């Protein structure tokens, strides 16, 4: 009985259609558990829309709206505005999009919604490429990473989506990852407490696209944080930074060596990634007052 009363209520059920060991599926489960069953979920073409499964064999136990690729944010904005018109103010609207749907094709519409401070929680499930169509580069793909359209390694840096969202001065933005479930769920709780546009950038390792063994998603997520490749922090009102996990500052090889997409890297590239991680962490510390 004790176990029954303490076990959290799951919104995402078993029987989803993710690849084995999928980090996005784990992330969705954690986010939705914190969100609760009284909620509405919008999703756009991405791994999320595949993972949630075809109705009625669907893994999500809440109303789901599958929208077009470039419009996760405005679809959520329409729903939350309509709730307001009808006097409903206790149903959070959450939008899931992938990194392509957020960093690339959906950025314009996300910016518009954030500018209006439309009322929804936006969760970017970042697996750092278009995994759904077979691992093509996105602007969330890190420098040097192999993808099927960056066959000699990505030449661009990963876009700093958190800085873009902070520049909109939205009430709440945070990074999170499946390697730190407590931190992640706390951030969803915090997002629920405020109104307006709330943004979660969720690193979701992809064993298929990152060329790892199936059990490596959580481990690689922890390594991303502990090497300062993906620090955990939150930003209130676009200016107030708080680091939520002090990392061990491990060398970046700890993270890179887990993944086949980096196996072509030489010492120079690794040094460059290391210095970028060091700078990210130092910059973040300056902002964390």
């Amino acid at each position, binding site marked *: 009985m004790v176990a029954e009363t303490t076990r959290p209520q799951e919104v995402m059920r078993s029987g989803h259609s993710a690849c084995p060991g999928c980090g996005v599926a784990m992330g969705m489960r954690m986010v939705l558990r914190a969100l609760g069953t009284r909620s509405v979920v919008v999703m756009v073409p991405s791994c999320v829309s595949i993972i949630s499964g075809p109705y009625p064999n669907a893994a999500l136990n809440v109303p789901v709206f599958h929208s*077009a690729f*470039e419009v996760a944010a405005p679809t959520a904005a329409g729903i939350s505005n309509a709730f307001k018109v009808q006097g409903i103010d206790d149903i959070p609207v959450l939008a899931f999009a992938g990194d392509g749907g957020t960093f690339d*094709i959906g*950025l314009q519409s996300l910016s518009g919604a954030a500018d209006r401070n439309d009322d929804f929680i936006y969760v970017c499930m970042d697996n750092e490429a278009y995994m759904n*169509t*077979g691992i093509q580069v996105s602007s969330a793909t890190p420098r040097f990473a192999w993808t099927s*359209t*960056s066959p000699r390694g990505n030449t661009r840096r990963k876009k700093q989506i958190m800085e873009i969202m902070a520049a909109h001065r939205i009430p709440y933005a945070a990074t999170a990852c499946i390697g730190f479930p407590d931190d992640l769920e706390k951030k969803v709780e915090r997002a629920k407490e405020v109104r307006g546009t709330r943004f979660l950038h969720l690193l979701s390792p992809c064993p298929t696209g990152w060329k790892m063994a199936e059990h490596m998603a959580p481990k690689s997520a922890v390594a991303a944080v502990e090497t300062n490749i993906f620090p955990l922090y939150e930003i209130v009102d676009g200016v107030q930074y708080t680091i939520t996990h002090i990392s061990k500052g491990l060398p970046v090889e700890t993270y890179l060596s887990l993944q086949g997409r980096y196996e072509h890297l030489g010492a120079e590239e690794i040094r460059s990634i290391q210095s970028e991680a060091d700078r990210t962490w130092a910059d973040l510390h300056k902002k964390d007052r």
Partner: protein
Amino acid sequence: MNPAVLTGEHFMTGDVACAEGALAAGCRFFGGYPITPATEIAEHISARMPEVGGTFIQMEDEIAAMASVIGGSCAGVKSMTATSGPGFSLMMENIGLAICTETPCVVANVQRAGPSTGLPTQGAQGDMLQARWGSHGHYEIIALAPSSPQETFYQTIRAFNLSETYRMPVLIMTDEMVGHLSERVVIPKAKTIKSVSRPRPKGRKDRFKPFEPGPNGVPPMAIAGEGYNIHVTGLTHDEMGYPDMTVEAQDKMMARLVGKVRRNLDDIISTEGYRLEDAEIVIVSYGVSARTSLAAVEEARDQGIKAGLLKLNTVWPFPEDQIRRLSERVKGFVTVEINLGQIHLEVERCACGKVPALLAGHPGGTIIPPDQVIETLKEGF
């Protein structure tokens, strides 16, 4: 050996053949964005472009992909993009821009079943009227439809040549079945591949009129940076390229934009006939459905029905005269296509009620089985 032309026998998909056809035609800029079932074109060309001194860029969406292709072509490089249904919808505004600015470019649409997300991994031919009318305003467009990887290779080259000749976007309306089908593709020697480049201006730079038509109605195209004044606009413009917001200017510009296609139909339209000589029923088809139709013609003949096939290599502009002429002597038409009646409407229009025009179609997800064509033949005639 020219690294852009992989002379020899290959076993490749329609998507890869499209990429190789583009390189052989001289395409050196590709603005791409992943979408099933067209992604393989971008993937293949992303690896091949650096080998031939070209550039592949993955854009942030299909709007940007199409816009980058127009920019690339304006700057003097043969340019293309490839997509499928939802991406094709996003490209529509810029396809209209390329029409109005007379910018040569090639767009491949590897069709999947819609509307919306539809059946992303399964084929259809449901974008044929969108190809014709999808961008706003009235215009002419050129669209080709290959039936095999080998045809995709050649039609991609032809698409570039037509787009360069007539200074306009040319669409390759292939489908998931052809795009993902692996077959033998023979790539000929580089010197046997005819490659056309846009007409270029000659003469005094201070007297250059950027939209003064040449003999076939197409103005020579100057490249930014070579000394001729260039001002590209999607506003209605005169021969100097100056915006002119008058009814007369609109009439004159549109007459030329539409006329350069309508006056060159013999050059643009390509069809193939199979057993048409004594045919009483003409099957009209294109893309993967033309292969289904070929089997249906054989089966019908075995059963004593005198069927023949008119295969449309060029779908737009539509071969109106050919259908009209056939309608004088045949008993009827059956259009075979994977939609609920699009090119069928054209056939019906051109048959003018003289003979019945039927459809063997369905809304997508698989090919039209030859049996369905036979059934339509038997029920209708």
